[in-house]
């Protein structure tokens, strides 16, 4: 699947998106796998309560199933308007 990062999540991880092979069943499981990729990831995902997630462009929660998700995006709370 494609994993996208925005705002300071993108900056901490150091890239805007990447292709990730994963058998994670939920967003949380995917986060666990990403954390193990190294310090930058561990730092970016240190506190998921400060993060938001969208699966296939729909806002959802960290316990959401991934099913056949093609795109998962992580970002801080939005500050539009």
């Amino acid at each position: 699947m494609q994993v996208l990062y925005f705002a300071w999540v993108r900056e901490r991880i150091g890239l805007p998106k990447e292709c990730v092979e994963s058998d994670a069943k939920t967003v949380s499981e995917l986060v666990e796998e990403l954390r193990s990729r190294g310090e930058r990831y561990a730092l970016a995902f240190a506190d998921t309560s400060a993060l938001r997630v969208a699966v296939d462009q729909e806002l959802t929660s960290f316990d959401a199933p991934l099913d056949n998700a093609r795109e998962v995006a992580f970002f801080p709370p939005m500050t539009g308007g």
Partner: protein
Amino acid sequence: MVVRVQKDSFDAGQVLNEFSSSASGSGAVVSFTGIVRNVAGGLKHMEIEHYPAMTQAAIEAIEAQAVSRWELDGCLVIHRFGKLVPGEQIMMVLTAARHRAAAFEAAEYLMDYLKSRAPFWKKEVTESGAQWVEARSQDEEALRRW
């Protein structure tokens, strides 16, 4: 129900006039214009990042909610991304309805949801560095009234 996500600036007055003409039959047109404010320390510019694949659909979903809650004759959202300097217009929301209550409430609803549910992130660049704007707890609380 129109959504425009764009890098370019826009002429708020022209947008208002075109919107009012297209929403003929309405007695009430409300517009909200968001403008880049200066900040303590002096803002050089603001950078607005967004999630292109999601932005349009997310705003359309917010508009659809507004249209289902209020009898609107029209509704328009413009939101810019990219680099903006103080005084520039960031975004605009317009609503048209028979009576003022619906037009005001729908515009406030759209603003409240755009603030916290549309995938935009603001970064402020000052002389002393750059930092991401943090979401305000009031903005999250504002959603509870709806």
